[in-house]
């Protein structure tokens, strides 16, 4: 199975047909999907039709875009017109959105072939994809282990070779954590770089869409295709997509990289050892590497679970059985609301709605939500200060390699700790990415994380390319 860049190049030149490429990938899916359950829905017929259209355009000499014929998967919280979009929740089962998310339109316009909608933790709330109403996804490297989450289906689909790239969403680490656990590249862009129009909202001040790919260059290709201003998202930043592929060969000579002490201290020794190795590789390539500290970053986990739940409690109020999705009848409207939400939401979603509602309640608002927002400001201030001395920060993506299914399913706090190293970038709105960097003591993939200040994607991708090259 070849890379997204190779596929697009071959399809654009006519050396390979998009139809053949999609059949090859559908065959890989047929071989392992029953075991892994990466998808909520495989769109075989639609993918074949889209590939045939790409081939027709190539034959006619028409422009086909940078992702011509590239099979991609979409997390099932990205709206696809006329195609079910469930968020892995019973409450949206069967719903077919009346519009496409902006990222979906952009992928189609670039010639990508949408192969399916991927499994996730319900409404993106979780770190293992075990919170899906449709059953868990399994890690392609070891099916007894979780793929991480919440975008576990997208990460597993790329790791298994089902698709050449995928999109996920990252509210507290939901792209980077599963990327690390599945051994693929995952990017959370700067808040506002990628339009959220058509992303089903979880926590609107934290949510951001980003790519999964098998290589740094493919991640750059995908991010270039989906980034850039969108008038339909009021938080979309002005300006076009950044040039990323063009800078991948520029190296890290002279870049100042800080190894984030608070993150390294939070993880298992075998994971920390890979961070040390990555730091050595950047230093060998000419970067100036030393230890950095961002003390307030340790407030991140607590602040996040108040802010994200508060925003979720507001966003998820829309699932009321009136306009779309599940309705469970009741004798009056209040009974209908209650019955619908009781039947439609899973346990973790209910837990977070209750936590968030409490954090926002009169009399407790200042003590919880208000305090959390102050902590968020401190984290941003400390990160801004450290970026006066560093161009990038380096750390682990996750505390451990992929854990076994079930071991954290009944312990929400243990599960929340999986995101301790990824949450601060969401609170700050900064970009960060996970790059596979060797194996842990158990032989499973370890991801190292690069963090950059707002709109620092180009610098971040340069360092990612150096890390990737240092492994081969």
């Amino acid at each position, binding site marked *: 199975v070849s890379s997204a860049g190779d596929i697009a190049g071959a399809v654009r030149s006519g050396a390979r047909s998009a139809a053949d490429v999609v059949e090859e990938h559908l065959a890989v899916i047929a071989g392992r999907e029953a075991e892994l359950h990466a998808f909520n829905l495989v769109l075989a017929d639609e993918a074949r039709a889209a590939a045939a259209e790409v081939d027709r355009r190539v034959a006619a000499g028409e422009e086909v875009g940078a992702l011509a014929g590239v099979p991609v998967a979409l997390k099932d919280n990205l709206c696809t017109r006329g195609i079910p979009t469930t968020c892995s929740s019973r409450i949206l089962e069967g*719903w077919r959105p*009346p519009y496409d998310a902006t990222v979906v339109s952009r992928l189609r316009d670039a010639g990508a072939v949408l192969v399916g909608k991927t499994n996730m933790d319900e409404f993106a709330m979780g770190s293992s994809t075990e919170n899906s109403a449709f059953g868990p996804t399994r890690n392609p490297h070891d099916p007894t282990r979780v793929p991480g989450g919440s975008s576990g289906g997208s990460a597993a689909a790329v790791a298994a070779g089902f698709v050449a790239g995928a999109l996920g969403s990252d509210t507290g680490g939901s792209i980077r954590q599963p990327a690390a656990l599945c051994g693929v590249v995952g990017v959370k862009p700067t808040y506002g770089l990628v339009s959220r129009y058509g992303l089903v909202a979880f926590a609107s001040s934290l949510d951001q869409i980003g790519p999964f790919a098998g290589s740094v260059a493919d991640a750059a290709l995908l991010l270039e295709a989906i980034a850039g201003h969108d008038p339909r998202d009021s938080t979309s930043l002005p300006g076009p997509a950044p040039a990323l592929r063009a800078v991948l060969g520029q190296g890290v000579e002279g870049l100042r990289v800080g190894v984030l002490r608070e993150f390294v201290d939070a993880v298992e020794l075998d994971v920390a050892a890979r961070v040390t190795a990555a730091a050595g590789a950047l230093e060998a390539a000419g970067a100036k590497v030393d230890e950095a500290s961002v003390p307030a970053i340790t407030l991140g986990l607590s602040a996040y679970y108040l802010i994200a739940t508060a925003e979720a409690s507001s966003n998820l109020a829309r699932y009321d059985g009136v*306009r*779309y999705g599940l*309705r469970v009848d009741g004798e*009056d*409207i209040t009974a209908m609301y209650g019955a619908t939400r009781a039947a439609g939401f899973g346990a973790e979603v209910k837990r977070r709605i209750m936590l968030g509602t409490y954090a926002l309640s009169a009399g407790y608002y200042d003590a919880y939500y208000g305090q959390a927002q102050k902590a968020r400001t401190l984290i941003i201030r400390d990160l801004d200060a450290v970026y006066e001395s560093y161009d990038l920060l380096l750390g682990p993506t996750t505390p451990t390699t992929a854990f076994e299914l079930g071991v954290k399913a009944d312990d929400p706090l243990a599960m929340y700790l999986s995101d301790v190293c990824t949450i601060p970038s969401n609170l700050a709105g900064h970009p960060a990415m996970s790059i596979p960097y060797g194996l842990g003591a158990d032989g499973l993939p370890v991801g190292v994380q690069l963090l950059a200040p707002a709109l620092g994607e180009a610098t971040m991708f340069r360092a990612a390319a150096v890390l990737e090259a240092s492994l081969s």
Partner: protein
Amino acid sequence: VNVLRDDVPGPSLDRDEVLAMAPAAEDGRFRVPRILGEAP
């Protein structure tokens, strides 16, 4: 700095397409159970 766009009407979602996804609709509107204590 004014960051608002010009106040120009644009297309919106098709009403029938949206209502087709509702659990219950009637006469171009969402239908819901009774809200107050009136007879159904």
